[in-house]
């Protein structure tokens, strides 16, 4: 069956659209009737208006603060938004993928509206678990206002880290791309230093289409489209049995034969040997729609913009994301020399999540019976979805942002600016799983997370020409930031009825009142506050537009740093030489632009947690594997030295980032060809790391400063307007980013440390897999070299040959090699725009080379002996288990799967594959309407377009989509949804 879901709540959306167009048209009419809307009534104001200069930004629309203290210098790249706006992207990160240099976008699962990640110039810090991704995210800044990112701390109460509890909604999907004027990726210290310690991992600077001066203008943008369901080689029990039997024939003992899974043993069982058509219910062609409208207008004294939008995306497995957003901005000049801007934005995002068993068990912290996997049969999957309909899974994020900016001009050369912002977000999830799908016990939980950030920035800027050619700008300012994240999480197991979808715990003495037994409920509450205070000064000197020197000094104090080390000075310096302004090049048309840039700077890095500042701490940690959250012994609360969290060394100080960057910008043939090269080295220093220590003191490790990691690389962009004549034009832009990292130091002078399944060694990259090296299989016991063991277990025929690198006849961690990384060596994109008369064709190819992935899904398939019926979340089989695993199965030797050496363990070179790819990310065909009839109907712009996304992929990776893998580089099969192929039709209209 094909799902052609109409966009839900279609009527409301159409009504809203009509309303907007209607009001816009009505307003327009009113304005047209009045001859000139830019003429205000009061005479005094008219006078003032005359004196006010109107800049190009004023007419384009902006929040009047982006020009002050926020000028861009240094290494910046900005994607072509005009194209990206046509594409059905809900989040900002997807816009940047392949379009901006130095950016690595990670979308482990294309579930609509789900959080994803972006790294600028490589991840800043280590990525060892999913929670580490949070702190490595860049700072997102909207109109000078630093957004608050979600916090990873809720992972603390979780046994499984697949998803953070809560909604896991992408916080960057709040923003409608139609409300954005420009996005800039700030990379080097010269560009990012002004945002302080939150910006050490880079900045994504977003400027909205703010209030604009001019006649009232209405814009309406809309699209509708469909994502196509992927094709699968679905199988039933017979395939799996045929896959396993050769292993049984070759190796199984009688005991192992006996435990051949019952669901595969009976070939008459229609549940597992019947039709394998689950994919028809699991995957669907998903609708996607978006509608946005904006109204703007006004004059230099008062202007506004109002935007409203809606977007919906359907994904496979009944998933859905729907966003509503409204924003309103005004720029006014209430008094002479005073500019006041206010911007208010509110959005709400709802998400329907995937129905995978693994994620559900993770949510419940409870492992259901795993004896029998779901059936590959569609009717049974549909029945299961039917039961789930009795449950609740509401995921809603709301976000309100308020920005207020005042600037006052004392004199043409002296300005004062004060910026105040509030970013407030709620993260709300209501979950109820009925007993019918939950081993007979229902489950209810509720997560209510709140976060807010308040910032205040005051600055004074002196800017004036001293003589004709010397221009000096001196800025001094102060910045405060207050952050707070908190959540309440409650859960209740085994409610009395499936009709009661809340939980009201019983009283302690009487388990019969209330909906849940008190003892089967749990409540958690957590809160983190952090503050940052900074003073900064900037001196910038420019000589005749040729030489520019900048020195930025910033003193930061963080509440998360030990008191004695709390304040630290962070300097940044930048120089640039505009060679093309020199007399000898001034008139050159061949070399129209030549600019050399250089910057070096040190920026602080904030700690995301608040307990590193007072030495060793006490915590409640009397839980154990699988039961992390016990808090009492015989009903009495306990408090122990934080053995699990680790020993916090006293005197922890700032971690910081040193970055140097050199760049050249070229322009040839009157800038018809532009190129930029940036070379950088970013060194994160004194990073906090928990390293294991002698276990005899009980601690899992020691937290201390002292890890240094360097990311270095080269970035290239080349843009050319290749053909440009009246009817035909072709322009092309290609970008490439190369990044590599290296560990420079570890705390306490250590040279190597093993953390989880990674090894870190000074002088080597931090992102390498740590793998046993395969070299075939011991065919028989006789082939095993005498005394060869795997960690003391004698190896036998049917075991893998792992290379004994140190020759001690023992295969263990010392024989692992650090090889391959999920971080590509080179990545980027190639965009082309072809114009013929009113048609425009645009396509973007994105690519990554030198990426290696581990096909964990394939490993799991071969490791069936250890995963069959095991009471372990790793043994979960989802409905998508019933598809042939993607990967080169013939390449995998037939080891003895029951061997105690775990022949099919994941971390071996056997499962390491090249994940390089080239992908046709987007293809857009646009028709721009032109002609007098437009104006007659009061239309300024009308264009229609069609897009196709992810249509083609070239890759050597055999494990499916080369972009669908976990943050740590493991391809987990059906859990990592590939970005779907999709087609949309849309229009842009302005009147």
């Amino acid at each position, binding site marked *: 069956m094909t799902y052609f879901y109409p966009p839900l709540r279609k009527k409301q959306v159409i009504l809203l659209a009509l309303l907007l167009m209607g009001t816009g048209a009505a307003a327009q009419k009113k304005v047209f009737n009045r001859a000139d809307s830019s003429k205000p009534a009061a005479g005094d104001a008219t006078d003032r208006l005359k004196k006010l200069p109107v800049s190009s930004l004023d007419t384009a629309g902006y929040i009047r603060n982006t020009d002050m203290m926020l000028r861009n210098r240094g290494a910046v790249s900005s994607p072509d938004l005009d194209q990206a706006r046509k594409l059905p992207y809900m989040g900002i990160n997807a816009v940047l993928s392949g379009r901006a240099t130095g950016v690595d976008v990670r979308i482990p699962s294309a579930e609509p509206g789900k959080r994803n990640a972006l790294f600028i110039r490589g991840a800043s810090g280590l990525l060892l678990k999913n929670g580490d991704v949070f702190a490595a995210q860049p700072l997102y800044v909207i109109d000078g206002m630093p957004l608050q990112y979600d916090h990873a701390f809720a992972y603390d109460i979780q046994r499984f880290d697949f998803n953070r509890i809560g909604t896991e909604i992408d916080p960057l999907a709040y923003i409608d791309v139609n409300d954005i004027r420009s996005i800039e990726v700030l990379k080097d210290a010269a560009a990012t230093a002004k945002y302080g310690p939150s910006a050490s991992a880079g900045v994504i600077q977003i400027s909205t289409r703010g209030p604009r001066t001019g006649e009232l203008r209405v814009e309406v943008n809309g699209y509708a489209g469909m994502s196509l369901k992927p094709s699968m080689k679905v199988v039933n029990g017979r395939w799996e049995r045929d896959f396993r039997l050769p292993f049984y024939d070759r190796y199984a003992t009688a005991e192992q034969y006996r435990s051949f899974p019952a669901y595969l043993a009976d070939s008459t069982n229609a549940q597992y040997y019947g039709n394998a058509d689950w994919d028809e219910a699991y995957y669907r062609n998903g609708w996607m729609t978006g509608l946005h409208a904006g109204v703007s207008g006004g004059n230099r004294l008062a202007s506004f913009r109002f935007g409203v939008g809606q977007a919906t995306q359907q994904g496979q497995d009944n998933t859905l994301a729907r966003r509503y957003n409204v924003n309103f901005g005004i720029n006014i000049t209430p008094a002479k020399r005073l500019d006041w801007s206010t911007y208010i934005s509110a959005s709400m995002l709802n998400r329907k999540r995937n129905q995978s068993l693994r994620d559900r068990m993770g949510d419940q912290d409870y492992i259901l019976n795993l004896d029998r996997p779901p059936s590959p049969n569609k009717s049974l999957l549909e029945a299961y979805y039917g039961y789930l309909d009795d449950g609740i899974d509401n995921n809603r994020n709301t976000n309100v942002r308020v920005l207020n900016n005042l600037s006052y001009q004392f004199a043409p050369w002296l300005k004062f600016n004060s910026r105040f912002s509030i970013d407030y977000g709620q993260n709300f999830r209501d979950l109820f799983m009925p007993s019918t799908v939950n081993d007979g016990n229902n489950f209810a939980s509720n997560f209510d997370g709140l976060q807010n950030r308040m910032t205040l920035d005051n600055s004074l800027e002196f800017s004036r020409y001293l003589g004709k050619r010397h221009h000096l700008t001196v800025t001094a300012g102060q910045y405060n930031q207050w952050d707070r994240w908190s959540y309440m999480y409650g859960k209740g197991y085994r409610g009395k009825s499936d009709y009661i979808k809340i939980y009201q715990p019983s009283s302690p003495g009487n388990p019969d009142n209330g909906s849940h037994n008190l003892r089967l409920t749990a409540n958690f509450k957590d809160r983190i506050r952090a503050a940052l205070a900074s003073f900064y000064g900037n001196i910038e000197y420019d000589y005749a537009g040729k030489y520019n020197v900048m020195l930025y000094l910033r003193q930061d104090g963080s509440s998360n740093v030990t008191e004695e080390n709390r304040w630290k000075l962070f300097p940044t310096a930048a120089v640039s030489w505009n060679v093309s302004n020199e007399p000898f090049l001034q008139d050159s048309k061949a070399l129209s632009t030549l600019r050399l840039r250089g910057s070096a700077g040190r920026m602080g890095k904030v700690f995301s947690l608040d307990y590193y500042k007072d030495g060793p*701490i006490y915590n409640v940690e009397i839980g154990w594997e699988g039961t992390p959250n016990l808090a009492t012994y015989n009903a009495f609360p306990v408090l122990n030295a934080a053995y699990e969290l680790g020993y916090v060394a006293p005197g922890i100080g700032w971690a910081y980032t040193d970055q140097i960057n050199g760049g050249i910008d070229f322009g040839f043939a009157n800038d018809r060809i532009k190129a930029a090269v940036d070379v950088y080295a970013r060194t994160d220093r004194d990073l906090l790391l928990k390293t294991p220590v002698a276990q005899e003191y009980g601690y899992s490790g020691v937290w201390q400063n002292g890890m240094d990691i360097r990311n270095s690389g080269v970035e290239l962009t080349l843009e050319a307007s290749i053909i440009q004549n009246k009817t035909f034009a072709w322009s092309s832009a290609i970008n490439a980013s190369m990044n590599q990292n290296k560990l420079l130091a570890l705390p306490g002078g250590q040279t190597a440390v093993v953390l989880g399944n990674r090894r870190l060694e000074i002088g080597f990259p931090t992102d390498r897999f740590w793998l046993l090296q395969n070299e075939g299989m011991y065919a028989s016991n006789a082939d095993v070299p005498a005394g060869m063991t795997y960690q003391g277990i004698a190896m036998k025929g049917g075991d893998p040959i792992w290379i004994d690198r140190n020759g001690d006849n023992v295969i263990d961690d010392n024989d692992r090699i650090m090889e391959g990384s999920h971080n590509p060596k080179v990545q980027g994109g190639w965009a082309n725009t072809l114009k013929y008369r009113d048609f425009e064709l645009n396509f973007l190819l994105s690519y990554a080379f030198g990426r290696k992935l581990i096909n964990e899904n394939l490993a799991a398939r071969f490791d069936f002996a250890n995963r069959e019926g095991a009471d372990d979340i790793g043994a979960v089989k989802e409905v998508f288990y019933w598809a042939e695993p993607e990967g080169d199965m013939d390449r995998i030797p037939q080891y003895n799967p029951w061997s105690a050496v775990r022949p099919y363990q994941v971390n071996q070179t056997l499962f390491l594959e090249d994940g390089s790819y080239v992908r046709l990310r987007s293809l857009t065909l646009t028709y721009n309407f032109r002609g007098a009839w437009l104006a007659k109907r009061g239309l300024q712009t009308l264009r229609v377009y069609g897009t196709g996304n992810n249509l083609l992929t070239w890759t050597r990776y055999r494990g499916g989509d080369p972009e669908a893998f976990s943050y740590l580089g493991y391809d987990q099969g059906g859990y990592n949804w590939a970005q779907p192929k999709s087609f949309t039709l849309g229009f842009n209209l302005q009147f």
Partner: protein
Amino acid sequence: MRKIWIGGLSLLLAAGWSSCKDMLDIESTRAVTRENMWATKNDAWAGSFACYGLLRAALCNENAYWAHGELRAGQFTVTQRGDLQAVRDNRLTANYATMDTWRDWRKFYATIAQCNIAIAKLPEVPALDERYSKTEMELDLAQVRYIRAFTYFYMVRIWGDVPLITEPGSGDFTTVARTDQNEVLNFAFNEVNSAIYKLPWQFDGTNPEQPGNYRGQGIGHWRGILATKGAGFTLQAHIRAWQKDYQGALDAIQIVRGNGTKTGYARVSVNDLTSNGGTFRGRRNENIFQLDMNFDHAEISTTGQLENWTLRYPDVSKKEADIFVSKDSILNIFHLASDTRIGTFFTDMGAMQPMFYKIKMLNNAVKNPTLRFFNSAISVFRYEELLLLQAECMLRTGDFNGALSLLNDQRANRNLTPVLNTVSADELMEEIFQERRRELIGEGWLWYDLVTFGKVPDYTGLSQTDVDNGAIYWPISRAALGLNPKLVQTHYWK
């Protein structure tokens, strides 16, 4: 007008500048710093009970208590799990995450470290908080000493020689080599000795060491759960028995036996042993020392209990249990049909795999259908076990008749015919061993009994040479070895 603006703006600026002095002093609301700990009665209570909690965590972690004490002995059959099979086959270097956990001693040393801190810090608290009396402090301190001693005793049984650390760490994490196990055991013995004099026989308010209600709760809350004199002497007896000082063990046991009115210890019937309110719920007179779990305190868990391995359909939605005792083994172990334990310790005897049903603490609130939250306490020392230890020690010190009568008392309670006094001493020893095996099945004793009775080669694939080379111990984990160069792996596991 202009002045107003300037004035307003400079006020705004001033507000921003002055506020940042205080704004950075934010105390964590998530963790307690060193300075803020060990200052009040509540700190002392929480800090001392953390020792119990950490010990429970170490023993429950991946069911370590049973992996160490029960599984190695081989009387349970493993269905599918390779890691459990590896333990049963004594392949203790096998590569499983759980195996790493069982080899690893960090959680035990966390218990030790918490005890070391508490022992150093508790004496300072009464001066800081007058609500915390010196008597109460002494009582808490003695319990902490007991836990530390018990933990060392447990560790010696698992790893043999272990580093003996008795002071709180100073943060420099100095590495320490393994200490001879006799030294460790003697330290533990002496610690118990000093603790015993501060511990009551029971926490019922009748002993001078523990006047009134302990922490506001009566004996009903504490019976069998906290360290008492009885638990102390029992631990001493086991330490001495492990050192093969059977007279020393007997001396300790006799003090317990001689204070029956004070301890209140009593034998348990088979029904009470296995019933839902029975031994594994605990707080009963047969329990000398239990590590508590309790549904009414929400101290329940899906992991860390033997039930997680032994229960299956229809009690738990699982087709087969991870481990079971095969029918042959049951008939072999409980060879007398009159034994009342056969019917209560096992169920579904007609099936291919009978279910081990001695421990099945499923509260009514989590039954039908089962929600897998178990709450059986770990019965560390039980009165029957002590009596059988006494019988063993009596026999080893030459008191044949005393041993025989103790054994026959126990057998009578389980509806077995008495052993006749015509048996030889060796035969009687075998009968005592077999009775321990029957009575304590599933309670984590058999492996240690195999060691103390010298039966490891008879019951496992290990030879006497292996035993002499240290095969009875677990290998030290790779992590511990890697982090402490002074550690030397046990000879057998090299």
